[in-house]
């Protein structure tokens, strides 16, 4: 009983450390061995705790330092500055841990013991860094301004699990990379002393992360078991992601370089380590949020992961479901970065919505001019019923008087081109019209009617604004494919064969220069796709229609251009479930395997493992 009375309450220690304003009080005066600490003492928590900030050590400092480049590490002062930053982090860790002890006194005693043990390690680290930077450059802790980076993310924690996810599994996990990386830099700069400090920090940090891994799993299991829990996470990874709200993200659990081994030593699963290795997320700036909007919910759902091919690591992609790990790894292997997948974008996210420009096209009268001035020849389509067609011979004949003298009648109910009928001007005689309608166009409520061109190929040209050069970049034409219903189905990932263009006559002059002039005049900086085609006219002459459609938004042609970087010379193809059936396979995974078994190149542009997909995209040879 005697010894019991000599023990000091862990909560008293935490409070003293938390409010300390000298290095001695932070690290030394209240650093007690376990045997002297009472973990069962009644909590003595000042209120309100939530609004309290930790005691500051840098109140004398006026100057803040930039983090040095490792190229300057030959200079002892530069190394000392780096250590000053690390010391800063240790200090924040100490304050955070003291705070957790104060905030969750009812947590399991073993958890409290673990946090206290970690806190003592951090005190030790801070002392080591302090001593070493004094040796190197004469710095004291508090000489320069310090940041409160972790603290800002930690003071909102609501549970011990929040703490382990944010502190142990984000900041301390990232520190595994930083410690390993900077130990190496110190060594190559000839500073074996600093290197060995970082080596020992790394070893301690592994045990800190292990503490986090164990307690996340403990609290997760308890939540799963409790029936009151309505928001059940499926696994530890999802639970982790949920516990680190914006602006934190899984990317922040990684340093500049990635080290897998210390993570495995800390007890993280291989799956978890893989996910951290490829995770995207912003490290500070407001993220750009991508969201594909194709106007058809079912296609959108299946193609929502496309931005994985161009979004930056700091971007967000808004998805209904996260793509599977295997697919993410395959994209990462090519791109060396992936965006962050989110169901709800962060509050400060800037939007790069797929349909942004499409909306402005409708609302912005400037776009009307581009058509009005005759730069674009949009195909005129009529929508009419069979019965009205019968009464409208003159209207139809007028439409047919074009360069190919042909019309295509597209049925509303036709599946992939079936039910499409091409009629030429020669067929269109007033006397025979009702009979022709009766025979060829019966039983349809609605027909879409357009001029028909004997297309040799369709091509698109992408225009991108380069903000650095203040110029538009016009990419060479790329050949694309459409299905029987003229829906986009794929693009050749290479420049269109020059010969195709040389051997054709321009129907009229390429309006490109005037379009560019127009774009520049109106300060238009979003991507633009110009579609055109080469066709045979009524005399069998090859002609080029340079621009049949202008898309003032992101298009599949633009996506194809992004994919070309990774799969040059191949084809980007969209496959529907009906296409799969036609090829005798049941799933997109089977399609991928089939293409590969034909010794054709095949890369899954969208995830193939998800069942119940109607659409999928691949690049294939």
């Amino acid at each position, binding site marked *: 009983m005697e010894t019991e009375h000599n023990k000091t309450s862990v909560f008293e220690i935490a409070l003293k450390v938390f409010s300390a304003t000298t290095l001695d009080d932070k690290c030394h005066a209240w650093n007690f061995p376990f045997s002297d600490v009472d973990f069962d003492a009644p909590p003595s928590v000042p209120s309100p705790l939530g609004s309290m900030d930790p005691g500051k050590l840098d109140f004398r400092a006026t100057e803040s330092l930039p983090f040095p480049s490792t190229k300057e590490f030959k200079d002892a002062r530069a190394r000392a500055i780096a250590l000053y930053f690390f010391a800063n982090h240790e200090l924040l860790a100490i304050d955070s841990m003291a705070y957790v002890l104060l905030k969750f006194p009812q947590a399991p005693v073993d958890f409290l013991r673990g946090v206290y043990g970690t806190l003592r390690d951090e005190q030790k680290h801070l002392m080591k860094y302090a001593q070493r930077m004094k040796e190197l450059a004469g710095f004291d802790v508090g000489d320069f301004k310090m940041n409160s980076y972790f603290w800002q993310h930690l003071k909102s924690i609501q549970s011990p699990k929040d703490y382990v996810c944010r502190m142990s599994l984000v900041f301390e996990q990232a520190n595994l990379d930083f410690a390993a990386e900077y130990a190496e830099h110190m060594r190559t700069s000839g500073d074996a002393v600093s290197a060995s400090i970082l080596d020992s920090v790394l070893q301690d940090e592994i045990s800190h992360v292990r503490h986090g891994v164990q307690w996340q799993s403990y609290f997760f299991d308890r939540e799963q078991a409790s029936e009151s829990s309505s928001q059940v996470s499926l696994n530890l990874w999802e639970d982790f992601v949920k516990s680190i709200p914006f602006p934190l993200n899984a990317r922040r659990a990684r340093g500049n370089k990635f080290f897998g081994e210390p993570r495995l030593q800390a007890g993280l699963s291989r799956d978890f380590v893989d996910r951290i290795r490829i995770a995207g997320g912003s490290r500070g700036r407001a993220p750009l949020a991508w969201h594909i909007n194709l106007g058809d919910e079912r296609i959108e759902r299946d193609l929502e992961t496309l931005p994985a091919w161009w979004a930056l690591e700091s971007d967000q992609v808004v998805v209904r479901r996260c793509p599977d790990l295997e697919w993410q790894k395959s994209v990462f292997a090519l791109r060396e970065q992936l965006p962050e997948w989110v169901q709800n974008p962060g509050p400060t996210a800037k939007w790069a919505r797929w349909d942004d420009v499409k909306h402005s096209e409708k609302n912005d009268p400037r776009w009307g001019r581009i058509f009005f001035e005759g730069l674009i020849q949009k195909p005129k*389509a009529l929508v009419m*019923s069979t*019965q*009205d067609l019968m009464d*409208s011979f003159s*209207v139809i004949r007028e439409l047919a008087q074009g360069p190919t003298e042909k019309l295509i009648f597209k049925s509303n109910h036709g599946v992939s081109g079936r039910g499409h009928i091409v009629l030429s001007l020669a067929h269109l005689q007033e006397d025979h019209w*009702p009979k022709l309608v009766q025979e060829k166009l019966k039983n349809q409520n609605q027909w879409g009617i357009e001029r028909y061109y004997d297309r040799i190929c369709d091509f698109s040209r992408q225009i991108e604004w380069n903000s650095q050069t203040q110029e538009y970049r016009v990419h060479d034409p790329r050949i694309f494919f459409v299905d029987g219903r003229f829906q986009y189905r794929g693009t050749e990932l290479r420049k269109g064969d020059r010969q195709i263009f040389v051997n054709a006559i321009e129907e009229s002059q390429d309006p490109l220069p005037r379009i560019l002039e127009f774009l520049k005049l109106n300060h238009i900086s979003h991507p633009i796709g110009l579609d055109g085609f080469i066709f045979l006219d009524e005399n069998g002459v090859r002609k080029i229609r340079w621009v049949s459609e202008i898309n003032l938004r992101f298009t599949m042609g633009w996506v194809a251009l992004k994919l070309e970087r990774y799969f040059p010379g191949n084809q980007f193809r969209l496959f529907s479930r009906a296409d799969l059936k036609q090829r005798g396979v049941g799933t997109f995974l089977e399609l991928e395997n089939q293409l590969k078994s034909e010794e054709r190149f095949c890369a899954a542009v969208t995830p193939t493992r998800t069942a119940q997909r109607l659409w999928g995209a691949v690049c294939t040879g």
Partner: protein
Amino acid sequence: MSFLDQIYSTYHKREYLGLDPLGILDQYRGKPHLTELCVLSGLMAFGRVERVRVATESLIDRVGLNSEEFFDELLQGSPEKNFFPKIKGFVHRIYRDHDIWLLLECFRYSHLEHGSIKAHFEFYFKGEDTVGPALSAVIADYLGVVKKSRRKSTPMTAHLFNSPALGGACKRWLMILKWLVRPDDGIDLGLWNAVNEVNKINEINKMNSRITPAHLVMPLDVHVTRFAVSQGWIKSMSVNWKQAVRVTESLRRFDPLDPTKYDFAICRAGMLKVRGQG
């Protein structure tokens, strides 16, 4: 005076009747069963007026539509035995004898159930903005008659019965209604509204919600459609019910009580212009 009214005053004249299927009916002004004559010749009106005239006149003769006894025969116990031999073998464009008989059965239905085609339309007209809903309802009744008939319909029977409910522009039915509902101004027939003054008609009929010229919808033929596109009232040459309503709404800005009065003049202007160029 608006451009439209200039066209109206230039071309809304009897001297241009010869170019129109309406010209065929001119000779029957004041004769019995003019409503049925309108429906019949309106529905026959495909292509060149001369051919339509020949076919229509021959059909009128065959069934005796201009005789006083026509309905006595049609409304009796089993008129098919009596009528079908008269039209057997008739062909005009897509129409066969079966189609014509089915149309006569529809006339019979309107008379037996409602007393007349006019009463049939008015039965369904509830004072809506346009005659569209009433037309859809009458057509639905007629399709019911066709279904029940002992004579089989042909694939082309459906073309007699285009309906706004299916999104159809119903050019021929709207044309027929225009002939019947618009007052007798030497062009249209004013058969369903005996008073020869549009404003008066509208005033009277507001009270008992009869179909008036204000309720008519423009029949879209190529000239009208092209004119509407040129005026920016519609964006494409598509011919369907929505387009017809859009064009009518634009015309109401010029004459809210009688928007279709411009139909005849726009068609004549369009036709003559085309011929002038050709």
